[in-house]
């Protein structure tokens, strides 16, 4: 059972308007549900950078999923497997046919990451709240610190599929020459620094970027209020600005694959590119790997002779 699509005019210009809901739309669903919690078939998920932010106040009825403690495998550098995902989602009251609306801090940075991981497991109806936590709060909509009462449900064990939307280092090497987007900050791209300005713990041994990658920092896709820019603006940034044009294969990367999930969402769902992959190994892998080509400076650089 799925929730209706948000008919907002802004969304109708996107390739997949069903992937976004507005704060008004969500508020309406909550109001309809009244004291019974959220609407049937709909689960709201908060996913933030800060693991405690949800506890300071969240959308009524929302559950929390943390990128680090819930979605990453605690031992191997990988995502959780089908069994862990089934246990996680079932425990949050999410069924395989639930509509999941994810929101979070920082322009939905981590929310987009969670959505991308849901996609690895083929969860069909998963959407972002346009503008995320910031917009919800800016509009003075309700927050609560009440613990959300969850009735666990059965979520099937689905094997994760990394083929469609996830790229590995070898895939990137084979991809060189096709559109590649580096969504990190300019100093990370040029090689002035190996870490994001505020994230020195997640470094790499070498600085620079994958040769031929163009630099479009991820937040370029967001308007000042945290919502996604319009279709027209996004086309100008990516289709024209990044020179992707009508290419059929695109890979995006950043440092560990979270900022590039945001860009992946834009390319795949808002602009409708059909074959977009997120390279989650990203710079922390590439910049520490032996004998992979690296370009430094502000220019994309050329494909090295192989």
């Amino acid at each position, binding site marked *: 059972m799925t929730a209706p699509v948000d008919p907002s005019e802004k969304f109708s210009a996107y390739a997949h308007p069903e992937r976004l809901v507005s704060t008004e739309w969500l508020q309406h669903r909550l109001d309809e549900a009244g004291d019974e919690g959220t609407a049937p078939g709909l689960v709201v998920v908060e996913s933030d950078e*800060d*693991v*405690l*932010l949800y506890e300071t106040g969240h959308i009524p009825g929302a559950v929390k999923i943390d990128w680090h403690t819930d979605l990453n495998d605690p031992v191997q550098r990988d995502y959780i497997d089908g069994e862990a995902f089934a246990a996680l989602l079932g425990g949050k009251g999410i069924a395989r046919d639930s509509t999941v609306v994810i929101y979070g801090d920082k322009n939905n940075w981590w929310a987009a990451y969670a959505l991308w991981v849901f996609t690895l497991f083929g969860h069909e109806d998963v959407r972002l709240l346009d503008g995320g936590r910031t917009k919800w709060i800016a509009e003075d909509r309700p927050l609560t610190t009440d613990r959300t009462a969850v009735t666990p449900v059965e979520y099937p064990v689905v094997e994760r599929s990394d083929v469609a939307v996830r790229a590995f280092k070898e895939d990137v090497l084979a991809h060189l020459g096709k559109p590649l987007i580096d969504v990190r900050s300019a100093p990370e791209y040029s090689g002035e620094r190996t870490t994001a300005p505020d994230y*020195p713990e997640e470094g790499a041994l070498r600085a620079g970027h994958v040769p031929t990658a163009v630099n479009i920092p991820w937040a370029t896709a967001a308007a000042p209020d945290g919502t996604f820019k319009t279709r027209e603006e996004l086309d100008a940034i990516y289709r024209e600005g990044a020179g992707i044009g009508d290419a059929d294969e695109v890979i995006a990367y950043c440092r560990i694959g979270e900022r590039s999930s945001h860009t992946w969402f834009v390319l795949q769902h808002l602009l409708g590119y059909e074959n977009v992959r997120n390279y989650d190994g990203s710079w922390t892998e590439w910049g520490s790997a032996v004998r992979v080509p690296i370009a430094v400076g502000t220019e994309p650089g050329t494909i090295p002779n192989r």
Partner: protein
Amino acid sequence: MTDALPQPLAEIRDDFLELSQQDRLLLLLEFSNELPALPERLQGHEDELERVEECQSPVFITVTVGTDGDAPGVVRMHATAPREAPTTRGFASILAQGLSGLTVEQVLAVPADYPLTLGLSEAVSPLRIRGMVGMLGRVQRQVKALAAVA
């Protein structure tokens, strides 16, 4: 290690360890809410404090030794971090409460891995805990520098 730990730090650790994972998060949130405001003379001068680079959010710390009415050799830690970064605020608050009032020798003797003993790695993730390890290291470095001058 456990025996040498100053009383306030040992108490904080024990408080965390006796709780379930979910309640440990809530205790961290309590610490976060209790982070005292900066003393007046420091307010508006945050840029003069030391930025904790190991933390993802902007958190700034400073320490005093034997000032503000404290006996000589007594350490006090101040920190500021935004409301939107409750985890980082919680880390700063634990250290500010656990270290303030100790002597220079006691602060310098706190093991670098104290943050790892709080039982928060599972609830918060080891990566985030490293931010607190970095914070403790910076406090100890500042204390050492101040003590050398005194």
